[in-house]
């Protein structure tokens, strides 16, 4: 009796150990079918998203007035970016406070589109300020300005930021 019970319990224990064999096996085909259906929906919704993005750009930010400002890190940043402020012709157009996830995304090669708006053709001044913490823990803040000339094409401005000792703190690049 002792031996039989031991064997029985061992079998139960082993079945526990190897993992669940629950109702999911019963509906394997259903799971697959529904998963494929969801994938199709995702594809269609992504299509709508792309179409809508193009339409919004055309409707709200036509090429001849569009300006977009992008933020990226030079190398891995070399500091902790807390907030960024963008001014166009002396007027603040956006202010962004960074989350840990966003910082990590920037450090790993991501580029953030921080502002998209409309301006007239001609010369404009863009002013960028950021606030952060240096590697040794002190406050690290910089401000820089740049003159841009808006033409017929969309104006794309990349703002590359870097920590102390990693080159220019703020570097502008027109694309």
């Amino acid at each position, binding site marked *: 009796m*002792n031996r039989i*019970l*031991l064997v029985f*319990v*061992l079998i139960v*224990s*082993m079945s*526990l*150990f*190897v*993992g*669940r064999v*629950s*109702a*999911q096996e019963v*509906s*394997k085909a*259903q*799971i697959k079918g*529904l*998963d*494929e*259906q*969801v*994938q199709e*929906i*995702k*594809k*269609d*919704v*992504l*299509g*709508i*998203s*792309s*179409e*809508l*993005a*193009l*339409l*919004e750009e*055309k*409707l709200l930010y*036509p090429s*001849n007035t569009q300006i977009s400002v*992008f933020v*990226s890190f030079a190398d891995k940043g070399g500091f902790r970016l807390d907030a960024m402020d963008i001014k166009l012709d002396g007027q603040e157009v956006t202010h962004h406070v960074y989350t840990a*996830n*966003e910082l*990590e*995304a920037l450090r*790993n*090669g*991501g*580029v*953030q*589109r921080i502002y998209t708006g409309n301006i007239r053709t001609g010369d404009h001044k863009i002013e960028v300020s950021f606030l952060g913490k240096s590697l040794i823990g002190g406050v690290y803040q910089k401000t820089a300005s740049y003159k841009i000339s808006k033409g*017929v094409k969309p104006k794309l401005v*990349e703002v590359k930021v870097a920590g102390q000792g990693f080159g220019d703190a703020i570097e502008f690049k027109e*694309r």
Partner: protein
Amino acid sequence: MQRLAFLLISAASLAALSFHTIDAEASTETDLYFGEAIFYANQGEYFDAISRLDTELGQYYGLDDPGLDSLHLLIGNAQFSVGDFELYYRMHQRAGRAIKSVIEGNVKPAVRNKAIYRLAKILLQKNQPVNALHAIEKIEGELPDEILDDIAYIKAVIFMVNGRPTDAIEILSGLQSSDTHGGYAAYNLGIALLQLNKDAEGIAQLAKAGTSSGSDEGAKSIRDKSNLALGYKLLESGDPELAKKYLYRVRLDGAFSNRALLGAGWAEIALDRYDRALVPWTMLSKRNVTDRAVQEVKLGVPFAYGKLRLHGKSAILYGKALESYDTELTKLDGSIKSIHDGKFLQALAREELKLDSNWVIKLRDLPEAPETHYLMHLMASHDFQESLQNYFDLEEMRKRLLAWERNINAYQELVNIRREYYKPLLPVVEKQFQLLDSRMRLRIEQRDNLENKLQSMLIAPRPQFLATVSERIYGDHVTKLEKRVKHLSKDNEQRQRVDRLRGVLNWKIFTQYHDRLTQAFKRLRELDGVVADLKEIYRSFVRTRQAATQSYEGYDATLNTLNIKVLEAQERIKNAMLAQGHMLESMAVNELDIRRKRIEGDQVKARFALAESYDRAQKKQIDDEFKAAVEESVERARKAAEQAAKELEETALKEAAKEKSGKQEATREEVKK
């Protein structure tokens, strides 16, 4: 054991592969939109990442000369990344196609090999091991450094699931020192050796994996897993003494602790050390009763007490187990009802819960939510996770579509407002524009004529053309005078004066011709500048007029189509969510039902065991009472016998004394006589 090994491989493999992060650190030096997609992907927002990259790729392919686009140099990488993002967004079908196109395209061997690795990973996840094997065998040439170990590891896993442990062993042996996969490789190497029936080597390898170094949670988990697997393997092969050694190595606060304590108890039982079995089992019995091992040990503890002949204690504990099973059955019934009432899905959809890493456990704290501890194993399964993620993705898309629907309505209104504003203005502007346009064209034509004349004068000089206005007036006067003096002789003073005037005029015009021509060209260039400005203003006006028209024209059809697509997608999502929700509910209910049946089985066993223990306890009690009664009777009999003997002795003594005294009396009487 084969099945056991397979499942262990799969679990470990998935855990190892899940360590990867987005490695689409493509050079974004030249394409900001690609960088933006990576920005979203790095935050786990794959929908936005795919949407942006899809839009960018769509625009790129629509260009007349894509070679001039900033994405051109990164196109292979972008295609690969979109497939990668789709893979993370669980769009395996599309991701597979995207990655296949990279493999078949003209790309560097490192990029192709990376794509093949991704494809093999998808196929393995989709439970297509043979296809995964075919894919991974295509890897050749240069391998990307950052995924060297990943490729080797997945290759080994694929070999194992395809029943080729020998090939897997070769690779896994080489991965023992890997920083990222060393622990999993050591464990899987042990499993592969067991698959080959090399038990001694497999056990030695698992023992090694169970004592591997590393203080992070992953390393600790691998050690526990190895010791647990080894312990059960040894129990199964009849070596409980050694099994115990490994089972006791499993951490008491780890995920495998309950099963280890259970196994350790059974190892002691197998060695007939019932009192020692009570140590791990008593500890386990105080843990969360929803765990299967804890429920099982509720029967184990009284069993051990029974073996120690403490039947009363055993019966009491069986009774407690029954109470506990009753409580759990009530809880399970409540949970099943809660799921049927839709509370499970409502709870799953709550965003704030997902901010907590233990959100699944927290679900149980919500009012009327099911007991999620029972669903922990189900929730950890691949199929349930995929279904749950699909449900979340559908919910996220539903919210997006609602927002888009609102946006599209707003855009339609915006277009109408623009139309109402511009439509009456444009005809007036158009009329003025046409007038200015014709005047401008005339001036430009005049300028062109002028240039033609100047150009022809370079070949055939025409000084008169460059005479000033006053010179022309003077010239006309001189001509008139010449007519008047024409009849006079050449020697005539009047005529000579007129001829001198002509001579002076011609002298001036002819001698200054080159300077004037240069000046004329200079002025023409100045005029060109003015004409260029005029043309720019003209173009700007045309653009503005076009922009005004384009700000409301041509949107209606697109917006209407998009609106219809959004509404259709909403309907499809609604249906899919219903189906997906129902499936999740069914999975959960079925899981709870299985747990319910198991507890009911335990309940039956507990009832029988309780009855048996009670009988034994009672029998023992009766036996003890009988024994006591017999002993008492014997004692009484003994005491009675002793008393009787004593009395008999006393009587004998008395009689002897009496006899003696009688004899003495008789003697005395005789003496007297």
